């Protein structure tokens, strides 16, 4: 399978690998996928009081496309508002990395990870009242 240069670059030099404190009130954590399916993404977003994503970190178990999709997503959401991040579609990710058809599910997972991280953040805020 021939991958795009952009995908290979995100895979070989992944951006924003790491973890944040998942208990912190300003951090939303999304954990999506399943080991049995061969991919699990953990995306964490640090969001300030203005609803701006200040930082993003990921860890991913999965194929090269899954890792590249996660890396790309962290660079896309940083500095964005929650609302703008929510608008990111899997097709945007797939197009950016020129994912082959069999790898589209990796971009779907990355979109899910953004949504899950934001949902987690909102839940925390709601609990804080």
């Amino acid at each position: 399978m021939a991958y795009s240069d952009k995908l290979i670059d995100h895979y070989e030099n992944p951006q924003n690998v790491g973890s944040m404190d998942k208990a912190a009130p300003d951090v939303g954590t999304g954990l999506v996928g399943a080991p049995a399916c061969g991919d699990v993404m953990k995306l964490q977003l640090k969001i300030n009081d203005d609803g701006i994503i200040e930082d993003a970190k990921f860890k991913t178990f999965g194929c090269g496309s899954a890792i590249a999709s996660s890396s790309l997503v962290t660079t896309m959401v940083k500095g964005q508002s929650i609302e703008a991040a929510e608008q990111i579609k899997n097709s945007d990710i797939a197009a950016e990395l020129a994912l082959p058809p069999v790898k589209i599910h990796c971009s779907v997972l990355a979109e899910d990870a953004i949504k899950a991280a934001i949902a987690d953040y909102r839940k925390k805020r709601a609990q804080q009242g």
Partner: protein
Amino acid sequence: MTVKLPIYLDNQATTPVDPRVAEAMIPYLTQFFGNAASRNHSFGWAAEEAVEIAREELAALIGASPKEIVWTSGATESNNLAIKGAAHYYEKKGKHLITVATEHKAVLDSCHALEREGYEVTYLGVQPDGRIDLDELRGAIRDDTVLVSVMFANNEIGVLQPIKEIGAICRERGVVFHTDAVQALGKVPVDVAELGVDLMSMSAHKMYGPKGIGALYVRRGRPRVRLQPLIDGGGHERGLRSGTLAVHQIVGMGKAALYAKEDLDTGKIDEVRRLRDKLWAGLQEQLDELYLNGSWDHRLPNNLNISFAYVEGEAMMMAIKDIAVSSGSACTSASLEPSYVLRALGVDVELAHTSIRFGLGRFTTEEELDYALALIVEKVRWLREMSPLYEMVKEGIDLKSIEWAAH
């Protein structure tokens, strides 16, 4: 010393043609190009003589008589001919066959084709080490069983089946015994007489010969095995496989067999084993949570199949792209299902996704192996650093306790 990249460690998929083999083949393309069936001129005689020498060379590797070798286009055809050919010939005796869940697709799909024709096939499972249970085999044989097909060595995990014991069981019950020995030749001694094998599939390109040529051993001595041919035509190969013989390919397979025997006789194969053992020992020393797939004791000397837990197989192959290996990961297969062989052993799907097959070969050097070992260790550590699963496990979280959303 610098190693030349990329490094080829996928010798279960195919092997390079040995330069000595390639050299022996060339004159049969340009100079001695005759049709081996041309009985009336020297071009034909030269071709026929070359074919018969190759037949002797291959027969010598497996302890057979040259008359028992039938040339085919490869082991896929040999498996088809053995299974469908025996089933059809012995149809009156019965329509039941026995094979194993971990067989090559060429065997499994031949069986599926027979099922569509009304035959019944029993697919034996395997134990966690990849070997069949002999008592289960005994229990599966019925009065209408005509063929048992069990591979010599598995192409993914290199596990060796108890061929001699299976041969004895089949002989006692009067059932024809076929084995796909593609992966075993030149790696472990194979003697059809001693093993009680009736039909045996072989392929040149897994033993440093060319692609597109194979053979089927068909027992002639007591008991004689009969087959119905798949291909109709000029009646070549005693009517079992019509078609003008591919002389240069056959010459290549003969020489490949000669050198395969040399690997066994000279102890070259023990050197391959030493390197394989060094790889496994080195990985275990430097990495945790590695799982060997399949038996260690009953295994080809050149195969290693390991699950690197929490590191997906395709990502791993991309990370070590200078080393050619293969993976049982779903991401590398068209079906998006992880290896059916590993699943048959009862390997967790999670671990099947992380499996890598290493196939060493005649031309693998110590420098290449050392380079590969260091690179693999570095990249597994890098990928685990990036793996949320590895992180969770290190935090003491039981991955099985999490409700994952299947997708």
